[in-house]
Each structure stands twice: as structure tokens, then as C-alpha cells.
């Protein structure tokens, strides 16, 4: 009877060890949802093109802002030049009319003499 107990001791120990090691350990909280979210994100990354990524969109927005800003500046400069040329033409016209008026004054004064 003693021999049988001695033989059963290592088996029991082994069994308990195996049970402990092979036993089901509950997963940490939220593991399932994290794994599913990561899987979904991977799927989305595969489907979405480069331009949909946030850094790329920011770069495109920045380029657009710079291009629009340059267009506004160029347009304003063009308008300024157009107005400046118009003002110059007005000055030249005024001086031509003044010169003609002076000529008329001279002619009249000469006639009187």
C-alpha cells in the first residue's frame, strides 16, 4: 500500500503542474476589442489611398494656400500697374491740354498786339 502511494505522488504533482500550465488564463480586459480595432485599421489602411492620409492632406492644403496667396499678390500687382498707367495717362493728358491752353493765351496776346 505504501508503494502505491509513492508511485501516485509524482503523477499527481505532474498532473497539477500540467493543469496549472495548460489551464485557461482569462485574457486581459479589452484585449479582444483592441485586436479587432487593429485588424479593422489594417484593413482600412489597405483600402485608403495615400492622399487620404492626414499628413498628405496637410501638405496639399499648405501648397494650395501658398499658390492662392501668390495668385492674390500677383493679381494685386497687376491691378496696381493698370491703375498706375491710367493715372500716368491722365497726367499726360492734363499737361497736353495745359500746353494747348497756354498756346491759345499766347496767340490771343499776340493778336491783340
Amino acid at each position, binding site marked *: 500500500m505504501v508503494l502505491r502511494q509513492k508511485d501516485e505522488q509524482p503523477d499527481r504533482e505532474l498532473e497539477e503542474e500540467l493543469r496549472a500550465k495548460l489551464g485557461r488564463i482569462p485574457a486581459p480586459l479589452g484585449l479582444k476589442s483592441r485586436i479587432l480595432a487593429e485588424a479593422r485599421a489594417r484593413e482600412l489602411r489597405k483600402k485608403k489611398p495615400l492622399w487620404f492620409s492626414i499628413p498628405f492632406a496637410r501638405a496639399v492644403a499648405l501648397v494650395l494656400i501658398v499658390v492662392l496667396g501668390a495668385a492674390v499678390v500677383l493679381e494685386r500687382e497687376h491691378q496696381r500697374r493698370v491703375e*498706375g498707367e491710367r493715372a*500716368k495717362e491722365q497726367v499726360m493728358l492734363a499737361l497736353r491740354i495745359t*500746353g494747348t491752353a497756354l498756346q491759345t493765351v499766347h496767340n490771343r496776346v499776340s493778336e491783340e498786339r
Partner: protein
Amino acid sequence: MRTKLWMGLFVCLGLLALPAAGQSGKQLLPPALEKELASKASESSEVTLDKKMLAFASKFMNSKDPDEAQALQLIQKLDYVYVRSYEFKKSNMYKAEDVDRIRKQFENAEWFPMIRERSSQDGESTDLYVHMVNGEMHGMVILNAEAEELTLVYILGTIHPEDLEHLGGNFGIPKHAAKAASKKMTQGAK
């Protein structure tokens, strides 16, 4: 308290605007008359330039072009330019009373009537007034009233008779005409 602050602000803004209003010259022809003359004229030219616009225009002048170089030299000393010129297809398209009203604006101590020519035959007239300050010309008015043309030139700013000589040979004006006018002005100033 807030109302007093706003009133004070408006008064200050009004006072700030006064000097600017003085420097801009005046409107010699009432807008209604301008509109009437322009509608009757076969050709009309209306130019009004204050100091700011003259300075702006000067930035676009080409110093290599003889006319523009001369113009640049002239306008740098000017404060205000007001020119109205109307050409009509027939006579009596404007009233003599309107011309008299323009002349009356310069019949005061500030303006010296240098030339006053009247033609009894056709009713045409030419007037030239100058505004003198310390022996220097600071304004000029030319009023030519012809049968089929009415021209009014009103310029404020430092005008040297030699500047007028420079007009001769440029802008299509014979040299002798500008020189004679300049000589007349120099004599009148003395």
C-alpha cells in the same frame, strides 16, 4: 460717458480730415454743370489729380521718354491738377453766366489776373490768373472760352516760369508759345 467718448472721437476725426480737404484743391465746376457740358460736347476731357495721385502716377513714368521725363519734373512740385476741356459741334452750347461764375472764384486778393482778353466780335475770352506767395507762383488758372470750345485749367503747387518753358517742344506745344507765356508770367510776377 460712452456717448462723450464717441463724440470726441468724431470731432478728432473731423479735425484730422480738415488739412487733407484743404490740400486737395476745389471743384471749380458744379457736378451738375460738368454733366451738362459733357453731354453736349462732342469731345470732353476731365482730369482731377490730387497730390497722392500725382505721386502715384510719377512712379510709372519712364525717365528715358522725353515727354514723361519733363512731366515727372513738373508734377513733382504740384499739389493739385484740375482740367476740364469741352469741344462742341456748334456755338452757344454753354452760358456766359457759367463762365462768369468761374471767373468770380478768382476775383479776390489771393489771385492776380495776369491776362484778360475779350473779343467783342465773337464773344470769346481768355483769362489767366496766378496765385503768388512771397513772390513765387503757387497756382495758375487758365480759362479759355471760345465759340465751340471751353477749357479750364486749375493747377496748385510751385510753378516756375522755366517749367512752362520746358513744356515747349514737348506735348505737341511749339517752343515759342510756352516761352512767351513764361516770359509774360515772369513780368507779371514782378
